[in-house]
């Protein structure tokens, strides 16, 4: 048998072996994740994606409706001083409620997942959670923030935080994951000093050491905040 023949046979054997390994791996993977389980999972993922699509569409429509209402109110206000006074009052209230886009000096805070410890097991301390974001937001509001947005989602007086490990849900979702960017407009110097204070945000700082959770911030003379684009309903509340 010539050396070329031998080489061909060896090559064929090698390729057949590789095929065998890959096929075995494929069969094993399918045994681990039965196809119907994966299909069910994919159906759930599709549902989430569809609902998130509806969510985004609704937000766009709400933003557009608020814009149209504002224009109509302005037209009416142009014809009456009393209406103009009311319009001004509402504009101020809307700004405080987060319904108006705003800009000004402030800080940008970034929170990013750390790394799991070698013996952390199922601990999720390395993940940024909603309490971390809430702590940062509370600190900034306490130190002169006049408006805050988290990953482009403007906070309102009724905003709520929830979520599970690594997921942060604000108001009507959908959830955010790391990195989380908190943008605050307000007293930039006070906010920066508070973020610099090593005694502030003890929970996050402890996990910076343990899991290298990232907390960075940067002052900026001109930051922009979007208007809130979701529901702000209080159907059960009546003024006294």
């Amino acid at each position, binding site marked *: 048998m010539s050396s070329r023949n031998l080489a061909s046979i060896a090559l064929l054997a090698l390729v057949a072996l590789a095929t065998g390994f890959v096929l075995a791996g494929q069969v094993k993977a399918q045994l681990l994740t039965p196809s119907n389980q994966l299909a069910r999972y994919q159906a759930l993922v599709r549902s989430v994606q569809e609902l998130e699509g509806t969510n985004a569409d609704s937000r766009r429509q709400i933003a557009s409706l608020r814009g149209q*209402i504002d224009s109509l109110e302005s037209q009416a206000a142009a014809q009456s001083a009393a209406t103009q006074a009311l319009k001004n009052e509402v504009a101020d209230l809307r700004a405080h409620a987060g319904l108006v886009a705003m800009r000004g000096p402030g800080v940008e805070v970034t929170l990013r997942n750390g790394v799991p410890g070698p013996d952390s097991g199922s601990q999720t301390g390395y993940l940024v959670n909603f309490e971390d974001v809430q702590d940062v937001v509370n600190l900034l509001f306490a130190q002169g923030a006049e408006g805050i947005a988290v990953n482009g989602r403007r906070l309102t007086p009724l905003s709520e935080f929830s979520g599970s490990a690594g997921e942060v849900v604000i108001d009507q979702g959908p959830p955010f994951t790391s990195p989380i960017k908190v943008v605050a407009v307000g007293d930039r110097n006070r906010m920066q000093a508070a973020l610099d204070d090593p005694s502030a945000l003890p929970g996050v700082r402890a996990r910076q050491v343990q899991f290298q959770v990232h907390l960075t911030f940067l002052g900026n003379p001109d930051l922009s905040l979007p208007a809130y684009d*979701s529901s702000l309903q209080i159907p059960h509340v009546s003024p006294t």
Partner: protein
Amino acid sequence: MSARPEAARRRSIRVRGISVWLIALLVALVATIQIRSQAEVERSLVGADATSLAFLIDDLHRANDSLAVEKSDLGNQRAKLESGQTGAADQVLTDEASRLRAIEGLTPVHGPGVVIVIDASGLTALDLQDALNNLAAGGAEAVDVNDRRVIMGVPVYQTNGGVTIDSAIVMPPWTISVIGDANRLGVVADLMTQQLRADRRVRAATYRVEADVAIRSVLTEKPFVYAVAS
């Protein structure tokens, strides 16, 4: 005589070469499927489990329902403004001002809800913040703790003297008055008080659902110094 075997040998080599290429192609195809399938499986297992997805779907349904109500409400406001009726704009603006003042905690409010009383020693700001988060998730629309109005942005802090809300210490027992959907809030309050009663620091944790909870505490509006509308 020697040309035929030579041709057959060449053909055999060519066929073998083609076979090798075909098998290599098959390997590449199977390997691609394998890698993609594993990536899919990994993504599914690392991202979120089916239970988490089911909860997420539930949350998104509720969120979308809430957004639909907002759209409908805004649509009605727009229709009223477009009607051009005398005083329509003033009415819309007056209603909006009243609603926003309630949302921002600038006026006393009332409505159905729950009143939770927690008597404990050693509870921290974290405990209060947890309670407030749970109530917010349960649909709280206005909240008061020991005659202190609480909205997003009102700081709840731990100090040496105890828990503070907007820099004022709130001594136990804490009376948390909440306005919102009384049924949903009742469920949340029930779970909360059950958990609190299992806590050694808690002497008593009770709640009552009321048809009309009154919240009289108000906040003072702080004018913007740095922010401008854009």
